[in-house]
């Protein structure tokens, strides 16, 4: 049962990472890690908006929802759902509402890392 979840997650998540690595390795210096971040978030949002990303999450589970594209997908999904409930204003509020847990977790864990490890860089 566990493998039925883990193997597709590994394959889907791994494929997304391989794609990003190839984008960087084959296009240097023009394509930096920052470009990967922006491309993946916007790409996930666009695919999500078009309804093409949800099937990938159905197959890959966390392998598709954890990478940056999953964040983009959640932004789009949240915006679409909020528009259905609240009207056009939901397009502005829905994305962040849907991803609030992820963003708050990033802030909290980032803060804790800074406190415990005293980064110098």
């Amino acid at each position: 049962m566990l493998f039925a979840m883990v193997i597709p997650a590994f394959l889907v998540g791994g494929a997304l990472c391989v794609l990003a690595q190839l984008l960087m390795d084959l296009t240097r210096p023009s394509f930096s890690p920052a470009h990967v971040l922006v491309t993946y978030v916007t790409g996930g949002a666009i695919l999500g908006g078009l309804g093409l990303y949800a099937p990938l999450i159905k197959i890959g589970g966390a392998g598709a929802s954890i990478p940056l594209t999953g964040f983009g997908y959640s932004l789009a999904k949240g915006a679409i759902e909020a528009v259905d409930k609240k009207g056009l204003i939901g397009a502005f509020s829905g994305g962040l509402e849907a991803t609030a847990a992820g963003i708050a977790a990033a802030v909290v864990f980032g803060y804790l890392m800074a406190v415990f490890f005293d980064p110098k860089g």
Partner: protein
Amino acid sequence: MQSKIRGKQTIAFESPPVVLSSATVVGPMEGAGPLASKFHTVLTDTLDGEKSWERTESKMLKDAIKSTITQANLMEADINFLLAGDLLNQITASNYAARDLPISFLGLYGACSNMALSLFLGSVLIDGGFAERVVAAASSHHDTAERQYRFPTEQGVQRPLTAQWTVTGAGATLLSRQGTGVKITYATPGKVIDLGVSDPNNMGAAMAPAVADTIIRHFQDLGSTPADYDLIISGDLGQIGLNITKDLVSQGGYQLNNYTDCGILVYDDTQDVHSGGSGCGCSAVVINAHILRELQAKRLKKVLFIGSGALLSPTLTQQGESIPSIGHAVVLEAPL
């Protein structure tokens, strides 16, 4: 008075300045490299008790400068001028080191060519009769350079195979009008050359044309050939830049068979630095710890050292500009 200029841009020093002493301070990674036994001071960690890497770099530079003075049994008051440079914004490593030294200070910026630039200008001051003794120095620190030019170190951004590793190190040379020791006999300051490389992760390739131009110009100005030198050594081109320089110089009509690069000598293959070392500290520590010793011991007689500098800023590379570069050459000769 007879002119000291030879050819187009090479200076022949009439009374060649003498190296009285030299000093180096390096980080733990350099201290684990192939030149480990040659460095004067090896730090056990990259902070060395300071609260920031910037402070550490300044301290390393200051310690190297002070060490040259004490080694020569002199006082700070005996030094007329301090010439130093580094890679940080507003050359702060040098400025903050000079803050604690009662010596007239000339801050230089030639990027990683700073060691060659400071040796050249210090020699000009001495041979011109404007100074009795000067200290020439340069520094870089891996972590301050990463912050300045690339990404926060904690981000763990991948480095491509063309990238070089900024040396954590400071080197200083005490030059004097009188005394015995290694002499600086010629200098060929370089032109700024930019053939359009815009990748800050491939600085060796960006700098190679400037270094090759200075090498060719030096031979042409003096009518000399590579065979007149025991060793020709560039500052921090790394493996990729070294190969390009060899090709470019051979297109200019000179075969370099006795040519290496400080960025290749400072680390070994197991240290995972990709294309080699870089930074002002790279040539500063290799020249001061290794090459000057070889000359002093007369295992080398005559060395052409070309400091290589990539004159970029992060702002301009982010705007897509290419990297202008420079190579400054000085000739170091063993005592007679």
